[in-house]
């Protein structure tokens, strides 16, 4: 608990100890859902496709339906992919990173264009002697 809490003279320490004991008791009784406690947030991040990145490995497309030899050819293709997986996966990741960087550059340029367009419109209005009522707008950073 904070020093300020102590200096404020309120007995938060005893309350916190009580809360910790309750948590320990719940844990011991199996009342805390491990699915909730352990669910990784990182698993919720957008898959590459949804984030606008279109390249991924699709080993399921490596197959053959040729009568008689299809299964063997499919197996051979899958084995080759397995041997080359790290190489192919690295290639895909490089492509995705490049696409992401391109997307980000495009977004930044679009923002700049919008800001400059707004500025041009404001300056044109000022030049015509019209009241503008607005300055350049932009995103503000988080704190």
């Amino acid at each position, binding site marked *: *608990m*904070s020093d*300020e*809490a*102590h*200096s*404020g003279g*309120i*007995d*938060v320490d005893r*309350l*916190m100890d009580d*809360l*910790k004991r*309750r*948590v320990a008791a*719940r*844990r011991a009784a199996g009342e*805390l*859902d491990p699915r*909730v*406690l352990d*669910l990784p*947030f990182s*698993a*919720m*991040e*957008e898959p590459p496709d949804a*984030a606008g990145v279109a390249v991924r490995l699709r080993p399921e497309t490596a197959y053959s339906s040729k009568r008689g030899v299809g299964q063997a050819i499919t197996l051979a293709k899958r084995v080759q992919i397995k041997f080359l997986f790290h190489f192919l996966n690295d290639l895909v990741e490089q492509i995705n990173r490049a696409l992401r960087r391109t997307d*980000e550059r495009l977004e*930044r340029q679009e923002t700049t264009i919008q800001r400059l367009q707004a500025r041009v419109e404001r300056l044109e209005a000022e030049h015509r002697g019209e009241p*503008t*009522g*607005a*300055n*350049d*707008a*932009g*995103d*503000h*950073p*988080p*704190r």
Partner: protein
Amino acid sequence: MRLDQLVAAAAPADAVTNQALAWQRVLAEHGIGGEIHAEHVHPQLADRVHPLERFRPAGDGACLLRYSIWSTALERARSVEPRRLGLLYHNITPAGLLRAEQPALAELCDRGRRELPDFAERARVAIADSRFNAAELEGAGFTDVRVVPLLLDLPAQSAAREAEPAPAVVSVGRVVPSKRLEEALRAFALLHDRLPAARMELVGNWDGFDRYRAALGRFATALGVEDAVTFHGRVSDAQRNAIYDRAGVYLCTSAHEGFCAPLVEAMSRGLAVVAHDAGAVSETLGGGGLVIPRADAALTAEALEAVLTRADVRGLIADGARRRLHDLRPAAVEPLILDALAPLLEAAA
């Protein structure tokens, strides 16, 4: 005599902007004029904040740089005579908390931190809005740092609450990764298991952080609480206050805060606060809330439940909050502002 203020971006509901406007009002009441200039000005503030390119250092005045990220405001501040320049540090979000979602913004944060020491010799006056922020300034080479808490428009008395609060958990702030709202959802899911009527109200915009917002939605679904959680987005002050008033507890799970104004807003609405210990959170609460070790979902849920169901816990927190709000009332903060700026204004006179 005048004191101009430079900020990176001026936007409605932005804490730095609100502080610049509040200080401008206080200074005006003491006969000190001055304008606010920003690199980016939201159209709603165009009549109150001027574009940075119109800033000219006044021969008879001083300038206060509000430092929260790198922007061209820093370059403008470098054109001010050092004896006329003050720096107010609002802290900078650690870039690592933003990089995955907004690498360009993260770079501006990194650059802001890198260039902070350059102002240690340049600024005559250094101010921080918390001791936590003051320590960072001192680490960057600043000396004689004054601490002036945020000047907030607080009611004379905190609002009285009903005996049995609604089982609603509220959190206010931008929906960005540094707020760690996933930890708020995780704690809420544990609470919801025990109090099925419980609801969570998340207030704040996610401009530029849509992917984080979408991930939070999926996380709520995976936790099984999607129907009990509302993302309100950006709301008016009146709407925000109405949400505070119908809530039973305020939850802050930020990984980093230089002050955290919503904690004080919540206290002033008579709302008990439960907050993870990070940055200046503990200092801002000053005993007016329950501080939980960071990212301990089980303990956070236990604290939320205690606040919602036990009058003695609410009473304990309310006593501390009243004391803290007394320290943060405008009548207590305004003299600190004038005192901190005195060397700057004297030098500029």
